[in-house]
């Protein structure tokens, strides 16, 4: 069975990696349509994770039935076989097993040489639950699936692209559709990679240190697994040699090998195959007393307190102050969210920071936020147009979001999904500032939002006969056409790192429904010569 378990671990790790790399654009050469190519939903693992689903439901105060249904299989598995998910399925668990083999020499793989704090994870879970109740996500930090996906995206994907480009004979990678056209780069990628590396280094303290001591999903499944149908059973042949107790990598066995903590047992079958007496079976039957889960009430309260402080802090952070016009409640000037995103508060509550949208973004423009959105928005996706624009014919971020923080949208809808508005800085624009012939923002604009007037805002005069040089026009932005995609900012030749045309959150209309945004556009529309009419 151990071999079967290992095969299962490898299978799910490979599936996770395949889905990770398939969270990429697939381009239809016939019409240029893009889709996420996968036989399973690309966010399969994120969806089946009950901790992610439930906290998203609690934090956003909305019963997302489809989210709930996806989490049922893992719960059923847990009710049947304890934390079999941790031992057989979880990709991070498999990575931890692999790392343990490296950092712990064989002779040190004994519980007596290990240090772990099994109760700590329940306090982590308490903090996660408390912050979710207060309407702010904390689960993203330590949920194993979200964490692994994010760390791979932010921390390892870009270096991998670089490495693959070094290899000879890999040819033109952009045709694979796996990597963005340009070398990918993610802000705070190092921190994300470090978090994963630190978890894998937990092997220095004990095997499966993460799963034993910290994982909030493990804690949740441990609570569910109090009375499993199948469990480890020790027969009368047991001679109390304690080999299994010393060998158990979850430290789930006590009382000279006779008793089991179902909250810790990951059904790895190691003990059953090790037992010289062949006294151990993993079998169904009536419940029998296990090892007690002895939570320290004071520490649990501390954990809940941490979550409470976080939740209160995050929901009242600087970035959420009401603005003067009352249009919206966040003030982060450069906080441009992907199109289709829910209104800011709902967005940060739903977003589990898995990084799938950043992974799939073909221009690499979606970047992890650091402090732009306040405490509650760390590692949420922000469009940074100077890195990459929001491509007009792309809706992949909405397709891959597992919690509908970015709601799916159709490509034609992008014309009235206002995520920001471009603003021209007249002191660095080479036309406004020094009268040069530049029109890049107009050339590249997908929505025909740049128009030309003279310096005073009047129509540009046409040159009189014999006047060789036409009168100069100056670029202006039409707020009803500009949706804030940022292609102008990406291509603007002026300003170095700081373009002369920049998208600010000023035009963000996510607090309005899609129909309301469309109506706003119609109400503010100006027909302009040569430009397309309102659809």
């Amino acid at each position, binding site marked *: 069975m151990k071999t079967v378990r290992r095969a299962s671990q490898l299978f799910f790790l490979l599936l996770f990696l395949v889905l990770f790399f398939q969270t990429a654009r697939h381009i239809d050469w016939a019409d240029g349509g893009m889709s996420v190519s996968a036989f399973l939903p690309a966010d399969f693992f994120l969806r089946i994770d009950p901790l992610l689903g439930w906290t998203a439901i609690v934090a956003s105060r909305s019963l997302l039935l489809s989210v709930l249904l996806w989490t049922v299989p893992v719960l059923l598995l847990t009710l049947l076989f304890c934390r079999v998910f941790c031992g057989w399925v979880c990709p991070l668990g498999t990575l931890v097993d692999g790392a343990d083999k490296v950092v712990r*020499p064989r002779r040190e793989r004994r519980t007596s040489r290990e240090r772990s704090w099994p109760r700590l994870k329940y306090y982590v879970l308490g903090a996660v639950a408390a912050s979710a109740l207060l309407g702010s996500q904390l689960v993203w930090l330590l949920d194993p699936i979200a964490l692994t996906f994010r760390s791979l995206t932010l921390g390892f994907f870009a270096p991998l692209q670089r490495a693959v480009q070094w290899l000879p004979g890999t040819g033109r990678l952009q045709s694979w559709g796996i990597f963005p*056209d340009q070398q990918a780069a993610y802000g705070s990628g190092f921190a994300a990679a470090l978090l994963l590396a630190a978890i894998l280094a937990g092997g220095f303290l004990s095997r499966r240190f993460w799963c034993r001591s910290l994982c909030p999903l493990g804690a949740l499944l441990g609570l569910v697994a109090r009375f499993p149908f199948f469990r480890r059973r020790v027969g009368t042949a047991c001679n109390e040699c304690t080999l299994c107790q010393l060998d158990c990598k979850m430290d789930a066995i006590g009382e000279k090998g006779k008793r089991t903590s179902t909250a810790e047992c990951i059904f790895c079958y190691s003990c059953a195959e090790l037992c010289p007496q062949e006294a151990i079976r993993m079998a169904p039957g009536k419940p029998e007393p296990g090892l007690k889960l002895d939570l320290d009430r004071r520490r649990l309260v501390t954990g809940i307190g941490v979550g409470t402080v976080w939740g209160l802090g995050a929901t009242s952070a600087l970035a959420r102050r009401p603005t003067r016009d009352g249009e919206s409640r966040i003030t982060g000037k450069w906080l441009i969210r992907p199109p289709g995103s829910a209104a800011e508060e709902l967005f940060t509550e739903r977003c589990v920071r898995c990084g799938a949208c950043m992974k799939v973004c073909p221009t690499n423009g979606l970047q992890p936020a650091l402090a732009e959105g306040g405490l509650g928005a760390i590692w949420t996706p922000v469009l940074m147009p100077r890195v990459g624009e929001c*491509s007009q014919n792309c809706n992949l971020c909405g397709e891959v979001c597992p919690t509908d923080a970015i709601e799916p949208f159709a490509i034609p809808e992008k014309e009235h999904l206002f995520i920001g508005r471009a603003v021209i800085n007249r002191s660095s624009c080479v036309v406004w500032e020094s009268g040069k*012939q530049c029109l890049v923002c107009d*050339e590249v604009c997908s929505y025909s939002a740049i128009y030309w007037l003279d310096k005073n805002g009047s129509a540009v005069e046409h040159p009189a006969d014999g006047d060789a040089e036409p009168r100069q026009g100056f670029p202006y932005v039409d707020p009803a056409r500009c949706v804030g995609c940022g292609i102008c900012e990406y291509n603007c030749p002026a300003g170095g790192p700081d373009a002369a045309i920049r998208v600010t959150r000023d035009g963000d209309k996510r607090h309005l429904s899609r129909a309301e945004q469309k109506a706003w556009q119609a109400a503010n529309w100006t027909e302009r010569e040569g430009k397309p009419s309102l659809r």
Partner: protein
Amino acid sequence: MDRRRFLGMAGLACGGAALGGCGKGPGSGAPGSGGTPSRGRAALTAGKGKGEVYVGKAADPATALRSALAAAGGLAFIRPGSRVVLKPNAAWSRTPAQAANTDPRLLAAMIQLCREAGAGKITVFEHTIDRPAAQVLAVSGIGAAARQGGAELSYGATEGDFAPIEVPRGKMMKQDMLARAVLEADVFINMPKAKHHSQPQLTRGLKNLMGVNFNRQAWHSGPDLAQYIADYASAVAVDLTVMDASRILLTNGPKGPGRTREPEEVIVSFDPVAADAYACGLFDLEPSSVGYIGKAAELGLGEGNLSNIVVKRV
């Protein structure tokens, strides 16, 4: 420390080093930076057909191309086995009906003609502006045309695909970048789209060469874009210009969408300046109002004065 642990640690350290290397942001690089610049070759057709423009007219651009090219003397300058690079305009994520890119039927016909003329490897090169590049090539039909014609499709997006070149005749530009595919080609055929541009000083053919340059943004912030376009054209050997005017974009160019008209013309010329000067007429513009045409003529790249240009319609 045993071997397994050592290898594990070494792996971690390498991973860390690789991570450190990914801090470099995209989009760096000034024009003409890096490496010793090479000098481009002279055009195979240099001096041939100066001031001559051949205009084919037919509903099918392939037919128009064949008749115009026959009148111009064909593709005899392509030696058997030559590496040919075709540069259509496929910068925008727009459909052929929106007339913002070169018509894929024209590209397909050109690939076919090059093959008939004995060309070896044929490469279709474009450095798209909209992204992702593969999607742009799919939407514009250019990708399918290249693939069906058996041509290599090259959409150079990274700096490594470009090499520095000298601009010996340039008035302002002394050095810039050129796509390696173009630099290493035996034959280079420019296939621009005739279309409106929101500022009348700039339009059409020679400007299509911006697509074989890496950092086109830098030109705009320079002192004189028109001079840059002319200078750059003096350093890139264009053996033939095939301009698509089968359907032209009249408003809201260069990306559109806008109004279109169907002159059903394909313009063939060995003189890139004359081709551009002729195309001005399609938009009721005087060539003198298009800054770079005069500047390119001054550099001796071709004939910019309509009264000296012979137009042969077929």
